[in-house]
């Protein structure tokens, strides 16, 4: 049913920390590895080892440069504006929106949002591969699989998070489990005491493209302005000569100094 639920009991989703993401792309690979063998059709690749490889991915990491302008991101320490810029790695997957436009446009009922946990899923046996849901999504979260002709998207690893056949520690999405920087957090945004709710409140989590009216569940935690850190100052201790002050080493140091 492509009508959206009025409310959902849980709001499962991800809090993605743009401050800690190192842009290693491990989440993409873990996602593809799990989901190509899990729920639904495999995530196919076309010409994977050839000249023009392409394929279906449910999670993609972009890298952006953010450059300060006179009115935005200005320095408090007087660093020249032209020098202020920083690199932000930006993982992007389905945001499991509350007002998911991809669901309501679906003509077949293949796309749906679950009322129990808010996860947006595709019933691949009903999908006709018209691609309209991918057009309706402002985030590029849905990709039509070229081999299967059905729409693929992030399932929030629905076949992991409730899976009692795997150790409890693994019952989180594959991207979260694999992230070496701890930049991805999974939880229930409906529960104000969950880790993701607390993180979002503490770090000023934000919606992507709020003007599109999608009310995304996934939250992005903004990076701290790194460009204001004085790298030379940070590196100072390494640049000064090491000296030993007392004891045997101190005596030896001084004795050797005297020898010239």
């Amino acid at each position, binding site marked *: *049913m*492509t*009508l959206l639920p009025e409310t959902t009991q849980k709001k499962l989703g991800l809090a993605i920390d*743009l401050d800690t993401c190192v842009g290693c*792309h491990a989440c*993409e690979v873990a996602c593809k590895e799990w989901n190509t063998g899990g729920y639904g059709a495999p995530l196919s690749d076309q010409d994977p080892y050839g000249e023009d*490889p*392409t*394929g*279906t*991915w449910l999670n*993609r990491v*972009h*890298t*952006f*440069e*953010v*450059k*300060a*302008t006179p009115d*935005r*991101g200005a320095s408090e320490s007087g660093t020249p504006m032209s020098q202020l810029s*920083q*690199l*932000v790695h*930006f993982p992007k997957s389905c945001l499991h929106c509350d007002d998911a*436009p991809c669901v*309501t*446009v*679906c*003509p*077949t*009922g293949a796309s749906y949002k679950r009322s129990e946990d808010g996860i947006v899923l595709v019933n691949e046996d009903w*999908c*006709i*591969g*018209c*691609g*309209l849901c*991918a*057009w*309706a*999504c*402002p*985030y*590029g979260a849905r*990709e*039509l699989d*070229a081999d*299967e*002709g*059905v729409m693929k998207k992030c399932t929030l690893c629905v076949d992991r998070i409730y899976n009692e056949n795997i150790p409890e520690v693994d019952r989180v999405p594959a991207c979260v489990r694999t992230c070496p920087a701890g930049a991805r957090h999974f939880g229930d945004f409906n529960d104000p005491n969950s880790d993701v709710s607390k993180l979002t409140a503490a770090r000023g989590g934000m919606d*992507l*493209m709020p*003007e*599109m*009216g999608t009310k995304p569940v996934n939250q*992005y935690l*903004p*990076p701290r302005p790194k460009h204001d850190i004085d790298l030379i100052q940070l590196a100072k201790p390494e640049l000064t000569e090491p000296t030993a002050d007392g004891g045997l080493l101190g005596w030896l140091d001084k004795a050797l100094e005297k020898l010239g």
Partner: protein
Amino acid sequence: MHPAPSIIIFTTLSGAGFGLLGLLFLGIGPFACPAFLWVSAILGFGMAIGGLLASTFHLGHPERAWRALTQWRSSWLSREGVLAVLTLAAGGIYAIFLLFGGVAVSQLGTIAALLSIATVYSTAMIYAQMKTVPHWNSALTPAMFLASALSTGLLALTFVASFAGPVPAAMVVISIVLVILAWGLNLAMWRRNAETGLSGVGSSPETATGLGALGRVRLLEAPHSSPNYLMREMVYKVGRKHAQKLRRLALLVGGALPLVLLLLAGTGFAEPFWLLLAFATHLAGILIGRWLFFAEAEHAVSLYYGHR
């Protein structure tokens, strides 16, 4: 947006078909002439059904297309499918009575005509509902689709009407008015497109990434070294390069030329020939316009791929 031929053919051809059928169901044309009735019914149903079949060519699973009739409560694409089936059913019964019984059931005809209009409207709403494509997200989209369906439909009907002898001057005059209206609405869309777009609704790489507070955002590394589905489908840019030339071509072929041909037909000399050419050129121009409708449209996802 990627201008898929199947979708361009679907929207123009089934638009022309439902436009023609809608006018026929209202009893417009020389109903005493059997050749007119047969040819217009075959042409109308042919274009409408042909267009609908073309729309299934881009599907990943056309064999499941029937499922698209189920979600009319929320989906414009589903509504379009349901209305098309209802129109063809009501219109089909009307046509059977007309062609085999010689009776025009006007009440049924009126219902079928209203359904034809509703079908074209819902086709347009598939695109007009897209907040992600601000160029489409306006009332101009259904207005342009409806005007184009009626103009191409009436030009086809007027051509077929000429089989029964000289066409009434009113049909030619209304054809001229509709051709002007169709291009007027296309011009209005082009003007609006120049002024709105993603920046017009406040979307930018800064809102897409949420990083605007830190400064100006620029894509440094795309996620992959080669293009993906999203880029092929929604970050299509080739169309914009030749947009101005194609607009002029569309206006010339689809607007100026049919107007001259309609005036020539008005002289009464070799009327069917001029009218056939007027229909063909107008349809060709509308096809070019529809190609631009897709190719020029900017999608929000392009903001993640270096578009501003």
